C-alpha cells in the first residue's frame, strides 16, 4: 500500500509544485491555507488536472503527464470526503450509500449498505434525508458513502472544519477507527495543528514555494528544516514531544 504524488499545477497567482510518498499510514497534509493542500487532494481524486507530474497508487499509474495517462475520477481507487456536505439532498442516506455501489449486483447492495451503517453507526438514519441530519451524522454518512465501494485509500479534505469542538473529537476517533477497521492509507488535510499532531503517523508539510517536508510529527519538530516550517509547527512542541 503506497501513494506517490508529484504534482505541478499553475493557476493565476499560484503555483503548486510538490512531491511526496506515503505508505499504509495516516498522513496529515498540513500547511498554510492557500498552500495547495486541497488542490493536491483534488488532483489525486482526478478532479483537477495537473500541468505536469505523476500520481500512483499501489504502483498503478493514475496520472502521468509524460505518458499522457489521466484516469477519470470514476476509475480512481479513492474515497473522497470534503468539508461541506456533498450528500445528494434528494436521496435518503440509504440512497446515497447505494449510489456508490454501481459495481455491486443490485441484490448485494442493501447488505453492503447495512454493513456500512453498522461500521459508522448510521442505523436508524438510513431512511432520513441529509437535511434531517446533524453535522456529525452528515459526516458519518459521507464516510459511509465514500467507503462503501471499498476504495484503496481515503482522501479527507478538512472534513471536520464545519463541526463543533466536541463532535470534532468524536470524528477524530472515527477516523482512527475507520483506519483500523478498513486498513487503508488515509490522507487528511487539516489546518488544525492539534488534529495533525494527534492523528498523524506521518506529516506532509507544505512550507510554501515548493518546500515539502515529510516525516513523523516528532521528526519534524526536532528538525523542521526551514524557518517557515518551524513557524508553522511551533506552539505545541513542548506539549507533544517532551
Amino acid at each position: 500500500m503506497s501513494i506517490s504524488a508529484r504534482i505541478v499545477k499553475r493557476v493565476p497567482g499560484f503555483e503548486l509544485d510538490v512531491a511526496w510518498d506515503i505508505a499504509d499510514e495516516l498522513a496529515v497534509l498540513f500547511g498554510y491555507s492557500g498552500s495547495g493542500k486541497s488542490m493536491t487532494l483534488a488532483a489525486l481524486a482526478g478532479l483537477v488536472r495537473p500541468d505536469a507530474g505523476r500520481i500512483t497508487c499501489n504502483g498503478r499509474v493514475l496520472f502521468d503527464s509524460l505518458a499522457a495517462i489521466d484516469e477519470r475520477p470514476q476509475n480512481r481507487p479513492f474515497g473522497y470526503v470534503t468539508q461541506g456536505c456533498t450528500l445528494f439532498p434528494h436521496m435518503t442516506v440509504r440512497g446515497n450509500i447505494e449510489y456508490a455501489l454501481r459495481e455491486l449486483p443490485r441484490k448485494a447492495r442493501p447488505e453492503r449498505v447495512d454493513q456500512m451503517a453498522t461500521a459508522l453507526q448510521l442505523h436508524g438514519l438510513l431512511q432520513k434525508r441529509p437535511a434531517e441530519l446533524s453535522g456529525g451524522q452528515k459526516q458519518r454518512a459521507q464516510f459511509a458513502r465514500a467507503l462503501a465501494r471499498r476504495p484503496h485509500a481515503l482522501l479527507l479534505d478538512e472534513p471536520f472544519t464545519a463541526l463543533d469542538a466536541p463532535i470534532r473529537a468524536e470524528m477524530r476517533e472515527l477516523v482512527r477507527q475507520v483506519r483500523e477497521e478498513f486498513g487503508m492509507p488515509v490522507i487528511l488535510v487539516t489546518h488544525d495543528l492539534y488534529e495533525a499532531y494527534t492523528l498523524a503517523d506521518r506529516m506532509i508539510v507544505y512550507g510554501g514555494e515548493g518546500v515539502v517536508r515529510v516525516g513523523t510529527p516528532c521528526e519534524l519538530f526536532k528538525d523542521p528544516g526551514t524557518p517557515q516550517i518551524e513557524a508553522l509547527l511551533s506552539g505545541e512542541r513542548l506539549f507533544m514531544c517532551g
Partner: protein
Amino acid sequence: MDTLADIAFPLRLSLQVAAGATLLTAVFGVSLGYLLAIKRFRGKALLDLLVTLPMVLPPVVTGYYLLVLVGRNGVLGRFMRDSFGVQLSITFTWYAAVLAAFVVSMPLTVKTVRAAIESVDRELIDASYTLGRSEFETAWHVILPLARKGIAAGLILSFARALGEFGATIMVAGNIPGRTNTMPLEIYNAVVFGDWGRAGLIVMLFTVISGAFILAANRLVEVRA
C-alpha cells in the same frame, strides 16, 4: 352554440400543437440547456446565439427562415428530394405549426434549464464522479433531479408561448380553416370578419389559460427559492 363549436377545433389544434412542441422542447431544449450549462466546446457561443435568436427575432422572421429551410423548394426540401427522392411536404400542415411553435418557444426552456443546472452545486457533481458514476448517470440521477423545478418551469413557459404562437406559424403553416387555424390565428380571423363576439371569447379563454400557466411556473420557482 355555433360559436362554441367553431372554437372547439382551434382550441383542440392549439393544445395539440403546443403539446407536440413542448414534447420536442423537453428532449432538445433540456439537452441544449444541459450542454450549455455543463460542457465546454468550440462554437458554444454560436450555439447559444442560434438557440436564443428566435426569442428576440420577430416571429415572422423566424417563420421566414423556417420556410426557406423546410419549404418544398427550401434548403432541406431540395436536399431530401435530390438525395433520397423524398418530397418534404410539411409546410401548411399542423406539423409545420408544431415546428414553428417549437423553434419559437424552446429558448425559454433552454435559458431556464441552463440557469437551473448552473445553480446545482459543483461539489455534488464531483462527488458523483468520485463515487464511480459516469457523466450520463450523474446527469440523470443528480443534476436533472436537482434542477427539476427549473426544468418544469421552463417547460410550462414554453408551452404557454407555443400556445400563443402566431407569426412563425402563419408563415410555415398558413391559416387554413379546419387544418392549421390555431387559436391565435382564429382570433385574427374573427376580427378580420368582424365577429367580435367570437374573438372576445377566444381572447378570454387565452388570458385565463396563460395566466394559469404563469402562476404555475412562478409557484415552482418560488418553492425552489
